[in-house]
């Protein structure tokens, strides 16, 4: 389709609005209320352009470009005098009440309102009357509220209520008094509230944790990163100043997180600055424990080159680190640092996805699904962004239906919402207990994992009769299964979501069966399985035996030296198992970034880098490998990536004279050669010596300040900038200033676009992929397998037994996360540890809510915790808060005893 903008001809995509079309061509047109993820409402009147009847029309008419559809041969003008004057006038109105706050406003320097004001040319206040003021509200430890700065664009409520499904932020009052806030002061309830700071075009909602150590955007050293707090692998920008991590921002990735992050991802960064960080290598059991690097190496030499080494990998360490450990200890001595139960289900998931029978679902696939079934996994708490994607699927399906019936484009947000009303796409939540996602569900059912698996197998049996033996399943389940199967049959691109947090293979198998049964040539089905940690998938793909096997091996052979990689074993296995292991080992070398119970056991402790002070690659639950880059320069510090430590240890072992430091891309190359299942992983980023026109990509914006003063208190002669040989990114402000490859975009900035809205200058089209395609390498390739994988393992009914409760974890969106729980803001919102049983269970135990209960599991006695009642939980199941700060590993999925304690 061709349109004419200011007498120039452009080819644009049909179905878009004029604003999107103009922005896609790289033209500057101011806007406020429109957002690529939320569509148009035409509230701010800022994007006015002139549209002409035809070529000869000179008069034209003003329209709001976001509300007008692109038509072939359209003539429009952005530069028209009247249109420009109109836009300037609109800004002038907005500015009549905007406070004189920019110097103390956290948005300043990255403010869409500032950018748009400059863009329209408004520069002088003619209005001489008083400004309207508002009182602020306390919105919790994450978000700061400064209502005076509001320009009434409605983006916050449209995001919070319509997009994220929050209920406690709204617009109040009338006419020129409207107020965006809560009914009364209080913590924002949605776990996606942090996005308000990026959605708000001005400084009404800002990041409260950044306020603690505030830095302007132009002063931040930024690097592309990947979130480490769940298995989804959202893309982030990590930002540093004065050697401290200052904030985490969203990094757009069209296939994964899009424009948003969850609060755990956005605010969970503080562990990097924690006092609990390990900064110094220690050799224990001597007078002076602190050791220099060469001292440590000399100490390690004694037993590394001679003794038997056992390597314990980690689901939260990078691919490079896990692989370097595997190389150091040898493939036969490398173990996953997770329990057998978890390793077993993880192995199953890898087998399913690598079979290629069904497509592994990205968040984008889930957002575009027209029917979603969630089986067994509490995705709201274990993978919040995935839950948000499911919400979009449900809402968008209804919007697409509405769009068809009223002949209006989907982006015409309020019209479509008005028509769709409460219509929703199909979502079935078949989970252990309720979550806020149930409010959206067409069909929700809560039961024990085995019962869920039985239902899911029954659904699969309906979808593909004859393959599953469902004779043992009762009528009620069968009729339920039929209802769900009938809807799924009609879907065009359904998605099945499950997860490993039930520690039940039948749940995953049955979910996979549904996906396989649904997958036909005309019905593209996708399958997603949530895992526990950020690199659980990567570790599982290495196909190493579990920690329990390592434990047996050590017990049998004895005299081993264990190298433990970024893994608090006391969180991953029960303390008995961990203790046994440590007692059996002669030498214990631990690499980690934070002190924990495992690091206390170390004989040699090495300070490992976090995501902010090191490079690495993670594989998310979808099988997408993504690279994260160092952002904190660690010159003069012992902190370095685990893979670097391990490489140095390896050269001790091989007595290599040439101590060649490996680069991450070289490690990935070796990984690809050693383990063919990782084929393609080297494409995750260009090589470390990649340049564009001979220039590297700067981590610092071109207006980075204070270079000759920030370290002048220590020495007035400035040191050489920290040089990073591991990646094509440099720690300076000099270098290539164009649009870099997407996986190496350290920040979004474009002339005249200082705020995060500048991302549209990096995309093919607004809301589309980043130019040069999205980052990440999908390691699981879809195959057309005829004899696909299919399971026929219908489990028996769940048996409720007295004193044999089924133990399952209960994660929390904000509180769970080994690393994120160090953030003070998240800690404040984290629940206290608890035990949760059904009302019937409470009756059986003869206790009241709040009474202390003790769990005993085959001789292991756990801490006493208060009991809560969950009316949606089925009898015979006990949930325990998991993943919180100080939580310990338990035998999830086993049967335990519950007793009252006084």
């Amino acid at each position, binding site marked *: 389709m061709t349109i004419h903008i200011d007498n120039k001809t452009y080819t644009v995509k049909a179905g878009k609005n004029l604003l999107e079309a103009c922005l896609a061509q790289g033209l500057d047109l101011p806007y406020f209320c429109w957002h690529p993820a939320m569509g148009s409402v035409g509230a701010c009147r800022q994007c006015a352009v002139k549209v002409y009847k035809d070529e000869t029309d000179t008069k034209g008419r003003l329209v709001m470009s976001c509300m007008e559809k692109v038509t072939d041969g359209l003539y429009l003008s952005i530069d028209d005098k009247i249109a420009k004057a109109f836009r300037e006038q609109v800004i002038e109105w907005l500015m009549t009440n905007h406070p004189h*706050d920019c110097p103390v406003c956290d948005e300043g320097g990255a403010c869409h309102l500032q950018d748009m004001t400059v863009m329209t040319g408004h520069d002088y206040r003619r209005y001489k009357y008083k400004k309207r003021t508002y009182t602020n509200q306390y919105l919790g430890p994450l978000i700061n509220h400064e209502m005076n700065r509001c320009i009434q664009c409605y983006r916050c409520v449209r995001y919070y209520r319509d997009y994220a499904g929050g209920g406690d932020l709204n617009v109040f009052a009338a006419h020129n008094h409207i107020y965006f806030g809560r009914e009364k002061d209080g913590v924002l309830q949605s776990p996606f509230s942090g996005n308000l700071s990026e959605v708000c075009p001005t400084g009404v909602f800002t990041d409260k944790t950044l306020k603690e150590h505030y830095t302007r955007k132009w002063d931040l050293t930024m690097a592309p990163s990947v979130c480490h707090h769940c298995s989804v692998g959202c893309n982030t920008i990590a930002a540093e100043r004065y050697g401290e991590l200052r904030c985490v921002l969203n990094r757009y990735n069209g296939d994964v997180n899009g424009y948003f992050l969850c609060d755990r991802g956005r605010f969970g960064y503080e562990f990097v600055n924690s006092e609990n960080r390990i900064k110094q290598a220690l050799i224990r059991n001597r007078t002076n424990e602190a050791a220099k690097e060469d001292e440590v190496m000399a100490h390690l030499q004694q037993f590394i080159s001679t003794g038997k080494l056992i390597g314990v990998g980690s689901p939260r360490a990078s691919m490079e680190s896990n692989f370097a450990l595997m190389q150091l200890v040898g493939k036969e001595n490398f173990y996953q640092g997770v329990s057998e139960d978890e390793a077993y289900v993880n192995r199953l998931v890898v087998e399913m996805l690598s079979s290629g029978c069904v497509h592994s679902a990205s968040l984008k696939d889930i957002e575009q699904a027209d029917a979603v079934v969630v089986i067994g996994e509490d995705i709201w708490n274990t993978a919040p962004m995935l839950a948000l994607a499911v919400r979009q699927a449900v809402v968008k399906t209804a919007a697409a239906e509405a769009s068809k019936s009223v002949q209006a484009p989907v982006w015409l947000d309020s019209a479509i919402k008005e028509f769709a009303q409460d219509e929703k796409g199909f979502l079935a939540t078949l989970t252990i207990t309720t979550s806020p996602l149930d409010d959206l569900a067409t069909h929700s059912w809560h039961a024990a994992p085995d019962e869920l698996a039985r239902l899911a197998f029954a659904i699969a049996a309906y979808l593909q009769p004859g393959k599953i033996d469902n004779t043992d399943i009762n009528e009620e389940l069968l009729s339920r299964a039929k209802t769900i199967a009938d809807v799924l049959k009609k879907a065009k691109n359904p998605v099945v979501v499950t997860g490993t947090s039930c520690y039940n293979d039948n749940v995953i198998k049955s979910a996979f069966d549904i996906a396989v049964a649904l997958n036909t040539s005309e019905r593209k089905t996708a399958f997603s399985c949530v895992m526990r940690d950020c690199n659980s998938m990567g570790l599982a793909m290495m196909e190493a035996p579990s920690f329990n096997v390592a434990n047996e091996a050590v017990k049998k052979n004895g005299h081993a030296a264990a190298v433990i990689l970024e893994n608090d074993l006391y969180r991953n296995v029960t303390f008995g198992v961990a203790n046994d292991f440590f007692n059996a080992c002669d030498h214990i070398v631990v690499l980690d970034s934070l002190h924990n119970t495992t690091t206390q056991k170390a004989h040699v402790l090495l300070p490992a880098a976090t995501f902010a002070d090191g490079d690495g690659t993670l594989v998310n639950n979808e099988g997408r490998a993504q690279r994260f880059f160092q952002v904190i320069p660690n010159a003069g510090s012992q902190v370095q990536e685990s893979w670097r430590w391990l490489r140095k240890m390896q050269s001790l072992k091989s007595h290599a004279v040439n101590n060649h430091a490996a680069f991450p891309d070289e490690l990935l190359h070796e990984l690809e050669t050693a383990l063919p299942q990782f084929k393609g992983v080297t494409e995750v980023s260009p090589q470390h010596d990649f340049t564009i026109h001979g220039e590297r990509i700067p981590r610092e914006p071109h207006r980075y300040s204070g270079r000759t003063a920030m370290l002048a208190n220590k020495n007035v002669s400035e040191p050489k900038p920290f040089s990073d040989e591991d990646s094509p990114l440099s720690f300076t402000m000099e270098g290539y200033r164009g649009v870099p490859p997407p996986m190496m975009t350290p920040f979004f900035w474009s002339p005249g676009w200082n705020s995060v809205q500048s991302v549209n200058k990096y995309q093919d089209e607004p809301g589309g992929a980043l130019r040069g395609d999205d980052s990440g390498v999908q390691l699981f390739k879809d195959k057309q397998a005829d004899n696909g994988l299919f399971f026929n393992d219908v489990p028996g009914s769940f048996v409720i037994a007295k004193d044999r409760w089924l133990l399952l974890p209960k994660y929390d969106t904000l509180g769970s996360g080994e690393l994120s729980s160090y953030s003070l803001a998240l800690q404040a919102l984290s629940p206290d540890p608890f035990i949760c049983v059904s009302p019937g269970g409470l009756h059986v135990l003869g206790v009241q809510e709040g009474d202390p209960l003790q769990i005993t599991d085959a001789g292991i006695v756990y801490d006493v915790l208060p009991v809560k009642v969950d009316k949606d939980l089925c009898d015979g199941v006990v949930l325990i808060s998991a993943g919180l700060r100080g939580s310990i590993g338990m035998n999830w999925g086993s049967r335990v005893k519950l007793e009252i304690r006084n």
Partner: protein
Amino acid sequence: MFSHIRTIWLTFLHLFKRHVTIQYPEEKVKLHPRWRGRIVLTKDPDGGERCVGCYLCAVACPVDCIALQATEDENGRRYPEFFRINFSRCIFCGYCEDACPTYAIQLIPDFEMAEYNRQNLVFEKEDLLINSQGKYPGYNFYKVAGMNAGVKQKGEGENEDAPVDIHSLMP
């Protein structure tokens, strides 16, 4: 020959001109108020620090010789936790003063800051802060800003209406 005599003559004539050199340091230089010399941080009429830590001076500085870190007191008033100027790099261009939205940073006529040791040219906030309003008396940023930082309540500032009562339905 003629040119030599002319030169001697002209030099001789200079004996009767008013001389421009002064006997510094015995004799002091006359300093004009707009001379751009040593940089100071001033205080507002109420004695509070004027600097709000907005980083605009740092970003305006062409030699990047200003580094600071903003922090907040219990009322939400921003001030610099540290404020450092490396005078060994400073070119006294005055851009920082131009950029300052609160009249906090000012260049004063004093230029006598020579040091034998370059390290001594690094000035911290304690060295920069003076107990005066400097060239621009009477300005208090927080009285005209919209936010409440303990200086005035919402709506009590200059040019501000009382806070909106969101329960009111009156036009």
